[in-house]
Each structure stands twice: as structure tokens, then as C-alpha cells.
């Protein structure tokens, strides 16, 4: 069987890559949810979202400096999962309030350019915080497996977090690390929680109504600005959760990681259908698979091009994505 030229084919490693892809996909999906929620409600591509994620990773990194080693760290991890998402959430709410809210009535490109500006500001903050070279967390928060720590050390020597994709491609002795289990244990409740919130709660229905027709929502007595702020808050929470899990899994962060991962996540949102929550999940998984399998079978450098190519093709031919959302009713 001649499937590819770049890597030795073995069923075991293929399934490992697929598994890695699904795990990364879950991460992308978490971040993608932030993009899709905000876009669904105010039709803004929030360029800054990826950098909020990055700052969440930076915060996690700093908090880990105070982390106790395993097994005491097991108390610390829930603390991380509480503090970082809340901080990211507050950051997101603040950005919305200061930058986007005054521009509600402006043409679409104006808040878009502002979002670019916010992204740059956040990147600068990240750069001030951790400098221009990647940083790795030293603490062993999770039970170390021989593979995990040697992977850590080698990741430290890698120059950019892109090269973390090489870490993904290295065959693992064990299928799931503890970081992966944490990932699954975080992502699934988070997404389920969101789905339940949006479908069954009053505020969730208000969010859906506002996304479908903001003027009508106002006429129902819904405080649309509050709903928008809540959406940003939720997006921030997901960015924060993704940040904790990502940092504990990949263990290396750098100040530009928000840009790349943000674009992957946004592509995921578009693939699945921007504005659609299950779409973000589906898209995340697909992009994760492309990311993982692509790194192995077509070489890390072209993975980027592949994913961006996917974004372009989708935007040109099927902007509504797979689980297509209708275009908002024209006012």
C-alpha cells in the first residue's frame, strides 16, 4: 500500500496521528467557538480572539511558576481552569466595551480594522510579558510519563512552536497522555454546557434571537448590548479553557502563537459554518485532522498553506460552510 512518500506507513502510527488530530481539533474547536459566537451575533471577525487565547497561555505559564508538583498539582489544575478563563473573559468584555461597542453602527470594515489593532496591542503585551523567544513551563503538573518529559525537553530546544507539530508527529508510546485526558475532560463538558445553555436557557434563547434578528430582539425587551457582552464573555471563557489545556499539553508558548492558532481556529469556524456552534466543533475536528495528518504526510511547512488554502476555497465557493448558516436577514 503506497499512501504517501514522506512517512513510513504503519497502521498504528496512522491511528496515533488521527488521534492527535482529533485532540488538536478539539482545541481548535474550543477557540473556534469564540470566533463563531461573536461573528454570529455582530458579524465581526474578531481578529483579537486568537491573541486573547495567547495571553491566556501566557497567564497559565506565569501561574505555573507557582505550581506545586504532582500530585499536589491536582488541586492546582482546577484553579487554573477557573482563573484563566475568567481573566480571558474579563479581557474580552473590556475589549468589546472599549473598542467594538462604540463602532456598532459603523460599516463592517471599521470594526474589522480595529480588531486588527487590538490584535497588535495584545501581541505587544504578550511580547512584553514573555519576550520574543518561546518559553516552556518547567513544572511537572501532570504525572510524567517517560515520553512526556523527553518530549518536553526536546520541545524546549525547538525554536518555534510551529515545530510543536514535529512533536505531534513523533510516535508515542502511549496513546493518551494525561494532558490529553485533561483536554477531553475539559472540552466535552464545556461544549455540552454551551449547547445546553444556548438551547434551553432563557438567556441562551436571547442570544440565538439576537443573532437571528437584533432589531426584533430589541423590540422583545432584550438588552442587546448585554447579550453581546455575554457572548464576548463566553468566547473569553472558551479561549481561556483552550489556553490552559493547550499550555499543559504542548508546554511551549510564544507571543505569536495567537495569530497562527487563531487563524486555524477561524478557518475551522468557517469550514463548519460560521455562526453555527456544531459547525465550529465539526470544523475544528476537520482542521485538527488536516493539521495532524498534514504535518506528517505533506510536511509541516505546507500545512499552513493547506489550511489557508481551505479557508480561501471555502470563502469563495461556500462561505456558509458545511453546516451552513443562512445570511442574516437584511434590515
Amino acid at each position, binding site marked *: 500500500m503506497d499512501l504517501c512518500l514522506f512517512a513510513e506507513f504503519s497502521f498504528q502510527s496512522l491511528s496515533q496521528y488521527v488521534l492527535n488530530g482529533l485532540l488538536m481539533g478539539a482545541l481548535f474547536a474550543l477557540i473556534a467557538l469564540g470566533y463563531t459566537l461573536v461573528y454570529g451575533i455582530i458579524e465581526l471577525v474578531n481578529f483579537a480572539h486568537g491573541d486573547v487565547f495567547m495571553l491566556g497561555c501566557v497567564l497559565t505559564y506565569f501561574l505555573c511558576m507557582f505550581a506545586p508538583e504532582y500530585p499536589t498539582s491536582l488541586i492546582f489544575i482546577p484553579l487554573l481552569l477557573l482563573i484563566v478563563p475568567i481573566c480571558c473573559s474579563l479581557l474580552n468584555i473590556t475589549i468589546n466595551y472599549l473598542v467594538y461597542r462604540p463602532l456598532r453602527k459603523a460599516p463592517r470594515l471599521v470594526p474589522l480594522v480595529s480588531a486588527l489593532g487590538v490584535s497588535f496591542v495584545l501581541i505587544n503585551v504578550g511580547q512584553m510579558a514573555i519576550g520574543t523567544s518561546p518559553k516552556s513551563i518547567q513544572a511537572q503538573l501532570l504525572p510524567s510519563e517517560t515520553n512526556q518529559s523527553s518530549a518536553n525537553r526536546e520541545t524546549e530546544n525547538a525554536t518555534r512552536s510551529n515545530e510543536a507539530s514535529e512533536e505531534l508527529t513523533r510516535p508515542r508510546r502511549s496513546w493518551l497522555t494525561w494532558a490529553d485526558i485533561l483536554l477531553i475532560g475539559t472540552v466535552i463538558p464545556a461544549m455540552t454546557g454551551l449547547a445546553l445553555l444556548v438551547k434551553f436557557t432563557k438567556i441562551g434563547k436571547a442570544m440565538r434571537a439576537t443573532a*437571528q434578528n437584533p*432589531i426584533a430582539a430589541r423590540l*422583545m425587551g*432584550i438588552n442587546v448590548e448585554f447579550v453581546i457582552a455575554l457572548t464576548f464573555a463566553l468566547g473569553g471563557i472558551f479561549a481561556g479553557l483552550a489556553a490552559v489545556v493547550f499550555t499543559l499539553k504542548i508546554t511551549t508558548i510564544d507571543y505569536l502563537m495567537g495569530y497562527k492558532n487563531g487563524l486555524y481556529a477561524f478557518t475551522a469556524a468557517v469550514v463548519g459554518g460560521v455562526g453555527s456552534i456544531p459547525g465550529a466543533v465539526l470544523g475544528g475536528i476537520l482542521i485538527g485532522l488536516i493539521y495532524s495528518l498534514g504535518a506528517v504526510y505533506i510536511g509541516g511547512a505546507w500545512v499552513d498553506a493547506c489550511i489557508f488554502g481551505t479557508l480561501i476555497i471555502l470563502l469563495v465557493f461556500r462561505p456558509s460552510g458545511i453546516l451552513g448558516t443562512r445570511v442574516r436577514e437584511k434590515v
Partner: protein
Amino acid sequence: MSQPILELKGVHTSYGVIEVLKGISIKVEPKQIVTVIGANGAGKTTTLMTISGCVPIQKGEILFNGQPIHRTPAHQILKMGLAQSPEGRKIFPRLTVKENLEMGAFTRNDKAGIQQDIEKAYHLFPILKDRQKQLGGTLSGGEQQMLAIARALMSRPKMLLLDEPSLGLAPMIILKIFDAIQELNREGMSVLLVEQNARLALKIAHWGYVLETGTVTMSAAAQELLHDPRVQAAYLGE
């Protein structure tokens, strides 16, 4: 005479640099149907949107039950008892009929009362009950209009604002809807009806205003307007 339930005094509204409403004054007495008729672009929808707080006012006053509401945010105006069935219905397309109605009751907390009112809505517009689990976007124009009005009623408003309920609908449906409006009015609902179909509107209204490019050019009892030659020429197609 008691105070009007709704009063606009010298209201100016602009979209950007373009002034759409140039100092209009309108009064609705309690339990009246008042209609504002005029051509496209006269400013009818802007008037209702300004009242509901969705469009900011530049100059003038709006009083609801004597209370100034022109600086009040839209979601609070609804809570005060002023509901609108907007231009183009603006149904929530991916919520079911029932959920649309529930959205209308968003500001309420009394589950039992809300259920009661949903049943009342089904009584007023029986077709909605048949379609209660269908998504709003799949309804026909007439059904959507009924849903929009029923949805507006869900907040138990003291006054209803209706923006062109007849637009794009078949005559049979229009009659049904206008019958319903009259029934609501008989039960005590005050109504401000904005319409392009001047004849129908003037037939069911007590008082009428004619709006032309942002100014009120005529104000009289509906029956008078119906028989006024100028109105007949311009709006009644005679």
C-alpha cells in the same frame, strides 16, 4: 379628557446627515386606533422605530402615559408597555413559532401567565397552533404577520405599534388580520397603525395622520380623511 396614551411632540429624527422626520406631532388617545398613512419613504417606519427607541431622536419629545420615553433604551420601552410588530415582520427564522411567542414574553417571569397568553394567541390566530413546532422562517407571509402581532401581544402591552401589517399579503389574509386588530381594540388595546394601504387603515381607525416626506400634512378623524378629495387622489387611487 384623560391624557393621550402616546404623544409625539415636534419629533426630529435623522439617519446620518439626512433628516427623515422633520418635527412631527402625533397623539393617540387611549383605546383608539390611530393610523399614519403616507407613501414609501415618507418616514412611517422611522416614526415607529423612533417611538420604540431603536432609532435615536434628535429633537422633540415622546410621552407614553405622560412619561417621557425618548431617551429611554428600547428594551425598557417594551417593559413600560409599548410593543411593536415591525416592518417586514422580523420573525426569528430559526426559532419555532412557540419559541417566537416565548421571546415576545421575554421580559415576563410568570410561566403560567405566559402559557395562558400563548393559548390566547392560538385562539386569535388558530393557524399558529397548527404550526407551533415549525421554524418561523418556514411560515408564509400571512402567517408570519400573524405571528409578529401575536408575539407583540405576549408582553401584555398597553399599546400596540403596527408597521404595515398588510404588506405583501393576500386580501383574505389582510382582512383576517385587520379583523383581529379591531377585536383587540374592542378589548381595550390602543393601536398606532402605520399603513400604505390607506383605505383599509382609515376604515378601521378612529383618527388619521398623513405623513409626507417627514412632516404631518393632515390630521383628522379617519372618516373625514376617507372622504377627503386630496387623500382620495393621492392615496386611495381615485
